[in-house]
């Protein structure tokens, strides 16, 4: 079993929206059909996107930090949006675990959007069908592309490599290793949807120094003050060696 997924490293995401624009650029001209925009330069712009970068402030000034949070379909292993679909337009591919919408079967009833707790499905107001991230299914299997480019557009566009792409069911894949070793977690675990996409948390590198490490403890008396004059007259080890 294969379950393709993204792993998003919140520690390095800088919130540049390159993944958003590259996703839109690739998919609006890909098999998903165009992702319609209305009034893009007008007063009340709106449009269909597969991927959004949101920004959260954690803590209160001055003890706060900004977390940029890219959000697209999590390709749940138990997707709540799939069983509710009355037509079968929404489905999960058994071979690679990608959750897709068949745009020719979708009736635009929006039930799947209501059944997704993450809000990653958006209806296209012009084609009147539900649209969502395809993990760039028309890129990742395209043998005309060099192997290094058979990745979702967002992954290739990320300037900080905050997005990893791979099979989370393969324990040795880059994504599985990242999830296992860097504390990868799933969103809203309380609903049992088992999202395939994972997030890597913010991590701080801190050096831990104990107080006794700030003073010499191995032989403090050699330098800090004069050698004690003791009853021993012959040479000690300290008299003949130094390190």
């Amino acid at each position, binding site marked *: 079993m294969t379950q393709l997924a993204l792993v998003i490293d919140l520690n390095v995401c800088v919130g540049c929206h390159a993944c958003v624009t590259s996703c839109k650029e690739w998919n609006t001209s890909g098999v998903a059909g165009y992702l319609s925009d209305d009034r893009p330069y007008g007063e*009340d712009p709106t449009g269909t996107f597969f991927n959004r970068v949101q920004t959260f402030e954690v803590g209160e000034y001055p003890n706060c930090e900004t977390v940029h949070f890219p959000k697209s379909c999590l390709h749940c292993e138990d997707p709540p949006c799939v069983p509710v679909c*009355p*037509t079968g337009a929404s489905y999960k591919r058994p071979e690679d675990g990608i959750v897709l919408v068949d745009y020719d079967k979708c009736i635009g009833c929006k*039930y799947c959007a209501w059944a997704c707790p993450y809000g990653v499905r958006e209806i296209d107001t012009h084609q*009147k069908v539900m649209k969502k991230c395809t993990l760039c299914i028309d890129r990742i299997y395209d043998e005309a592309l060099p192997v290094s480019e058979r990745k979702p557009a967002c992954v290739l566009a990320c300037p900080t490599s905050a997005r990893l792409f791979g099979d989370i069911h393969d324990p040795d894949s880059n994504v599985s290793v990242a999830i296992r070793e860097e504390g990868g977690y799933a969103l809203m675990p309380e609903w049992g949807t088992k999202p395939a996409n994972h997030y890597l948390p913010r991590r701080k590198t801190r050096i831990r120094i104990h107080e006794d490490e700030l003073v010499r403890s191995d032989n403090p008396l050699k330098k800090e003050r004069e050698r004690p004059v003791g009853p021993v007259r012959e040479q000690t080890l300290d008299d003949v060696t130094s390190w």
Partner: protein
Amino acid sequence: MIVLTTLIGVGQGLFLALYAGEWYMRIHSGLRDSGEFYVTASVLSVGLLIAGLVASFFHLGRPERAWRSAAQWKTSWLSREVIVLPIVVALVALYGAAHYVASSPDIAPWLVQRYWTLWIGGVATAAVLTLFLCTAMIYACIRFLQEWATPLTVFNYTLLGSASGFTLATALAQHYAAEMTLFFGVWAVVVTLVALATRVASLIRNTRSRRKSTLQTATGVKHQHITQRSQGLMGGSFNTREFFHSASPAWLQRLMWLFLLLVFPVPILLIVAGLSVKMTGILTAAFVAQYIGLLAERWFFFAQAQHPQNLYYQTMG
């Protein structure tokens, strides 16, 4: 959705009332010449169900593909509803036709006074109850919409639909079959009172429930103080339009009291008044008030659901 669920609710309730009334009449006084009443009420019930079906097409993006929605009956309650609704329409129509034939001896004398209507009605009753279950489960099966994910949703849909159907049957009976008015009126009041109990129970449940999803679980960041600064868009999106209503909490509160008044005490008083002075107009007013109240009730039901996705869409900018 509001119009669909309330209209088919009345249609189903009206049929349940009819069928219950037929049993009552057969047990107590034999089926008298009230064929016109059964036929009219069945036609009305079918009309309401079809009107609901038509209303449901308006919320589809691609109504021309609606036929596909019967495909996933194994997993989807919406698909099941799409299948059961036409079955109910057909069975109620058949029930009305059977009464028409039974009340016109010159068409088919061998059918008169048989129990065919009871058999057809029995099957139709099962279908109507299944339809109530399907409609309510569409909402109740989404486990993270905590306001809906309760068996009370099923009880409310069934009882509120039945209450409005019995109220309508009371008004119709006053005009077409006066001997059944008291039966329908009393049961309309009883069903309305039971519906009041379950609806208030769900209101209490929802004010007490604790949100399972928070910004902490939505982002995976463990901090008591997380504020959204941007949702990744400057204008609106599907997510900001579909899952939010612009009503203020105070307005919602007023709407709740409005529907609690219009669905429960007002029709009960009007039914009691209408029964005592035997006026179709007052009984019709009872139904109209209850139906308007049900529209408000359904609007409130949809508005009360707090979708977890809203956690990601709190602040523009």
